[in-house]
């Protein structure tokens, strides 16, 4: 699905991401962990196109994408849910989610002005997939509220719905569980499991090693912009380098 080779991106002489190579298989759930400043979010920004790498290649389904802009990559099936609330203020939850369908719409302004069959069909599909996405994340009851009126946790869930509405091939989740209460975390984990069960390829950045270990097929550990270790969650939790660098303490028995 996604192949990253030798990716580097410095900021003012310091490498935020350095020579990182990652291979994510179709339908895999890959966890990305690492201490603060390890380059996890930078890696996501490089994949989604908000940053350009100075070196390296990114291949999505055998197409080179590192030169494409963010909106072009979204149209090729990469969706991202940010840690912060990247919401459309002044628009309702439903409208926020609806806009997520843009990644797969083909009708233009002329179609909309002339109300062509393509426009009508897509308009109908957008409404259906919006309702389906809202239902799936459990926000249907909130659909007509303004997005900014939602609590932070639900704003993030709304972003997940927005991403799903575009029917992505690869979903990037940047610390979706941070700031959530226990029950919300549990619901989020179930949602992520469900998405993965549906065949979606997911990359998940998470601070909480327990949370991500329960979900991920494989973990990639970043430290100071470089890959420290990679493997199945149980291997990673036994890896001495990881324990020293990432946890900074002896492992729990």
């Amino acid at each position, binding site marked *: 699905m996604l192949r990253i080779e030798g990716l580097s991106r410095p900021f003012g002489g310091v490498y935020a991401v350095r020579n990182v190579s990652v291979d994510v298989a179709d339908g895999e759930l890959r966890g990305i962990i690492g201490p603060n400043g390890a380059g996890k979010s930078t890696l996501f920004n490089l994949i*989604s*196109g*908000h940053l350009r790498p100075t070196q390296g290649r990114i291949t999505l389904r055998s197409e080179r994408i590192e030169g494409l*802009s*963010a*909106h*072009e990559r*979204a*149209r090729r099936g990469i*969706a*991202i849910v*940010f840690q912060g609330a*990247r*919401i*459309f*203020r*002044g*628009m309702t939850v439903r*409208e926020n989610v*609806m*806009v*997520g*369908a*843009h*990644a*797969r*719409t083909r*009708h233009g*302004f002329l179609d*909309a*002005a002339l109300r062509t069959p393509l426009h009508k069909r*897509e*308009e109908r599909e*957008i409404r259906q997939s919006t309702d389906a996405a809202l239902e799936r994340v459990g926000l249907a009851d909130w659909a007509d509220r303004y997005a900014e009126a939602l609590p932070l946790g639900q704003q993030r869930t709304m972003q997940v719905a*927005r*991403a799903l509405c*575009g029917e992505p091939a690869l979903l990037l989740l940047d610390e979706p569980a941070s700031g959530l209460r226990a029950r919300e975390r549990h619901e989020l984990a179930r949602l992520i499991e469900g998405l993965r069960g549906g065949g979606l390829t997911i990359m998940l950045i998470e601070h909480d090693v327990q949370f991500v270990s329960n979900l991920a097929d494989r973990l990639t550990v970043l430290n100071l912009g470089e890959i420290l270790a990679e493997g199945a969650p149980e291997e990673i939790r036994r890896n001495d380098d990881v324990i020293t660098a990432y946890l900074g303490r002896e492992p729990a028995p």
Partner: protein
Amino acid sequence: MSAFLSYLVSGIAVGCGFALIGSGLVIIHRVTHVVNLSQGMYAVVAALSAATFLAAGLPHGVAELCAVLVAVVAGLLTGLVAIGRRGTTPLSSLIITFAVGIFAYAVEVLTWGDQPRSFPGLPGAIEIANVRVQEQYLLVVVASAAIFLALDLFFERAYLGKALSACSSNPYAARVVGIDVTRMGLFAFALGGALGGLAGVLLGPLRPTSFDSDVSLVIEGFAAAILGGLTRPILALMGGLLLGVAEAMVAGYVNGSYQTDVALVLMLAVMIGQTARRPSLDAEGQ
């Protein structure tokens, strides 16, 4: 009484024109966060072009349509200069649109000279309740009503209207869902050009247009738009009607040279009122 009615009719028609210019401002602001100071220029370019096309022998309708297309091109060019380069802040873009308006003076004076021009509209007049109403006024009102209905349907109902609004609400997140924010902005500028151009060809027969008419037009358009809080085209229509009627009454009963002052005073009053209600006008959009 009949004087009052005829002032009212002309006020409504001219107000529709202000509203068209104002809605261009609203749409461009809604998508790009830029206040387009060259918005009045599109009306000027369209009116002067229509006069030229008609003088060249093009039939009515075709000439006006071509003139609106010229305004669309002018809008698109403004957009390319103002927001074509990624990372231009809305404030820098605002200054650029001002510069484009000044530059357009040079082009207009070279092309059409510096004398005001007019061109014929619908020639007839009909009687409504003992008041003679020029048909051109009715044309302005009917055309504006249709345009505003279409705009409101597009922005409030159609999906693409949502995508356009998303661009200004959060450009970063808009790119994430696959929206080409720059292209959407350029579309807004083209649409703004079209609306300005429509105002120009509709108002052209009612008042002579010269290269510097854009100043009063953009002030009146902005006053109409700010009455509606720069948010929805339909609110700009309300603002435009209020302003047009107020100006017509002042011109009819007091003195015609106070027209722009009416717009400025109304605009100030609304802005003071809005600021009193909220800590800052910006707080809503941010």
